[in-house]
């Protein structure tokens, strides 16, 4: 919507969605279509999953793409990869390091911790979007990124992890 080319991925082994309690999440494999998840949860407990926003999210997602994607299985190349948890940052870095290298193009990996619930995720999305736009606006990202991130850090009082890898 804001003029950025974005794709989103999961990085774990499965797709986990909140369940009736913390210990009982709904677990799906990565090749489960959103459509299926939506219907499944709707049938399980429509009011619970409407209330906690999961159905809304799935509904939005199913209109964007068919099913979730796993980062490690994607071979698309990016300029910047955002992660929202340190653990995921580590996974992404490790995956990138273990890939076959060919083109030597730079990719920046940036982590900002976002708590995994609908409210914080929305807030986080706005932050990432703002950051993304700042990066888009610069002419020479590799040279400006340090400054952008430092400024962003001091503005939002959040800690950012930032590393580079190469495709």
């Amino acid at each position, binding site marked *: 919507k804001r003029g950025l080319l974005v794709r989103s991925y999961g990085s774990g082994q499965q797709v986990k969605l909140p369940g009736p309690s913390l210990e009982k999440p709904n677990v799906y494999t990565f090749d489960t279509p959103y459509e299926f998840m939506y219907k499944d949860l709707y049938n399980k407990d429509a009011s619970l999953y409407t209330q906690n926003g999961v159905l809304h999210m799935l509904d939005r997602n199913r209109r964007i793409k068919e099913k979730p994607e796993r980062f490690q299985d994607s071979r698309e190349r990016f300029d910047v990869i955002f992660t929202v948890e340190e653990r995921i940052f580590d996974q992404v*870095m*490790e995956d990138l390091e273990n890939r076959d290298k060919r083109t030597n193009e730079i990719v920046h990996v940036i982590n900002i911790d976002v708590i995994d619930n609908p409210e914080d995720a929305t807030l986080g999305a706005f932050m990432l979007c703002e950051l993304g736009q700042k990066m888009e606006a610069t002419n020479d990202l*590799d040279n400006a990124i340090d400054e952008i991130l430092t400024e962003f850090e001091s503005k939002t009082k959040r800690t950012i992890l930032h590393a580079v890898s190469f495709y």
Partner: protein
Amino acid sequence: MSENIQETIVELINQASLYGKDSVRVQHLRHVQELILRKDPSLLDNFLEEVLGFQTDKSPEVRKTIISFIEEACQHDPEVIVKVIDSLRLLLYDDNVLVQKRLIVSMITIYRLTLKWLSKSRLVDENVRSMWESMVNMKIHIIAMLDSDNDGLRTVAIKFIEMLALVLSRRTSDSIIPTSNEQDFSLNLLQDDHRILRRNKLEQEGKDVMEKLLEFTLSQHLSSVNLIAAMGAIANIARQRPDYMSRVVQTFEALQVNLPPTLVDSQVSSVRKIIKLKLLSLLKHPASFDFQPQITTLLTDLGATQAEVLKHLPKVPAESKRKITLSNSEINTKKPKMTIDDTSIFDKDDSNSSISGKGISTSGTHGSTMSSTSTSPSSPYPQHQTAIDITAADLVGKLSIGNVVDLVLVSMFLLPEKMPASFQATYTPIAAAGTPAQIEHLARLLGAQLTAAGYGKGYELMKSQQQAKPKIDDDIDEGKPIASIAGIGRDDLFPSSSADVEGKPMLPSTSGNELSDMPSTSAGITTMSTIPSVQQKKMKPFKLADAIKPIEYDEMQRMSTDSFYRILHAEDVCETAGVGHVRKKTMTSLVCLSERSFRDIYEDYIFADVRKRHDLAFAWLYQEFVYANGYLSILDPNKRKDFTKYDDTLCRLLEYLQEKPDQRDGLATIYTAVNGDIKRVILRVLENPVRDMGMGSAEILKLVENCPKGAETLITRIIHILTEKAPPSRELVEKVRDLYHKRVSDVRFLIPVLTGLDKREIISVLPKLIKLSPPVVKEVFNRLLGLNSSPETSHASPILSSELLIALHQIPSEECELKTTMNATTLCLNERSIYTHDVLAIVIQQLVDISPIPVLFMRTVLQALSFYPKMVGFVMNILQRLITKQAWKQARIWEGFIKCCQKTRPHSFPLLLQLPPPQLKHVFQTAPELREGLMRHLHSMSIGQRSLIPSSILTVIEDNSENVAPEIRIQTVPIPSLTSHEQ
């Protein structure tokens, strides 16, 4: 089919060369690339020229596309390189950084391909030769990019060098090559007798660039991105070329304790994360077997868990090659004795200070002779044992509890005042302090530090091995002292005292002492033999007095001053060699004994960095005291106590301290002279020191007072930092105000100390303040209104929120455009938590009493009303006041009055009835709908009430024919019917 493709390509190229959107033209060219290289590569020859034509295109995007085309073409057929080399060179020198960067990225592949192709090709003609020459030049240019100003260019240069180090070396059996690099060139593929490529030369070059890369990785000014890229590069190299494993592991060791000081907190954590990642990947490598202890220790420091480490250990049978530890222990048995000897000698000499300087320097020189003779010839180090290993091994034995305690105490003086971020982030308590493993680790840490700083036994040894391999043996045979660790500092000292030594009979006795203290090791004997041999030479023509010409006084003076300077400048070397206290004693004694010239030099030296060197001043004073008391009256037993010199010294030192040059003033001057990047760095690192100094610091106040031209941003930043957490102090406000009035008329200067100014001042600068950019204005209000400040730091603003708003209203339009003032009042009003309806009521009440009423008054009333509809009663009172004040005489107010009446119907009707007839008529003209409402209002009144209304008013209300415009008349038609209904 081929015909068809050819036509499509021609069409696409034509379209791409037309004017159009860059992105579309890039699309066309990409399409061409795909058609040629993926569909029908035979067409490459036909179209290469045409495509290369785009290399001079205006659009950087198009030029980048051409680079990718070239790269793919070269991959497809390396012979193309000869044809495209000129384009590559042109694009390397492109004006656009992004194009340059893209080219370097492509050059990584192309250079590798070139080597591979050349190594196979038998045919080497003139074209190929000149292509290779260009390639070499480009390579040199790219390597030099490591020093570029552009972060991204540096990053890709690192990748390029990584590639160079890989292709210019050999694969070994334990190389782990990623599948994608399986086919890459390496020196194994090169024939010995190649026409242009000389294997030895290339191999040496590979080593050189690797050294450069390792050195770069450890440099202190690196950005975090560069550092991460460099770490990735050296780790890749170590995995693919395990010969470098040892050097790379060491680099990581050195790096971990020496991260660039320019990194901010979060960058430190990112970098440490990557170090961990890279070390784990190295740990997996079988060739890192010998370094497992070091790597594991580092990883533990980085917070890796035991499980993580175990997971990454390679599954190789323990094939023990423990040469290192073996040779280490050999050295260990020898080294400790040395140290003990050294210290005991120094301790002895300390008691008779007047001669200590001379004595020590001599024995020091012998010490160095010993260390080099005892080690360098006897233990030929294994090839892979490096400087850090040697220095660490050397240190292990020396790290006795006593020595470590001394080290800690000495370094106490050097501790920064505040804990550095990187330390705070990474410090973990030492669990196994004092265990052999921990001591070994400590020794390695110190070894890494010393080597990085260019000191230590290992470093010296490596250096001497490198520089003078054949020479070493000769030197030893002749018994000359060899410069080694301890030698450096003392070599500096030696000339200064040698003249005295020769003249006095001290020397034999000193060396005698030394000998009796020492078990007669071979080293001791070597020392013995060196001294007589030197002396014998001098004894032969013994008439010393004849041989020596008297030195001119000036010459003598100059020489003694020079030698004194040399001692002064040997600070670092002496510290490293552990003879800092000797140096101090030497200097103190010299200064006490000799005449003024030394004193001034010494004073200047101390006060050049008084923080670090104040101990020298104290030592000096102490020495003077000792002399004054006559404790050292060997020279003159009858000397009386004489404190004049002591007093004099004390006074001088104190005086000096007072007029100590302001160091931060110096900073400001530097600041004005450097470029933007450095300015930014200064501004960034300024925060902690400035905060520590606080606004009470006289230096800071002085700096603000003397702000040099061009350093305004610096000063502003300093003031900002100071006032971030605490209200500005009176002195600071004073200085800033002064500066503002006298020199810097930029009002932004005042913002940080706004709350320290008095109300009158604030009001007087308000017009200037609100002209600044909206975020700044917001900041100004935040400060004035005490917003965003935490409870403990909040302090009474000198201006009340109501007063501020009133002041805004009173800004005359000639000082500030009405629109600006209006925006500022809106900003205020939007702070609803501050401008509650109570505050607004006060503001409005006071404003209405001002004469003339401020232009924005009615606007504020209307806004207040829209925020707080309950204020309507209050507003009616205000409108009432306006009527008594004959508000219609002020056009703007009157306009607002009418608008307000419209908004507050029906509350405003009684008010309207109080207007004089002409004004009421005007109201109706402007807002005809009010007439209708008023009419209804009239009818709802009782007869008695109506009778109180003057008939002139009633006439105005009812008579709508006279002054009302025709189109409005239509609206008034229903009125008669209303009236009739009433009757």
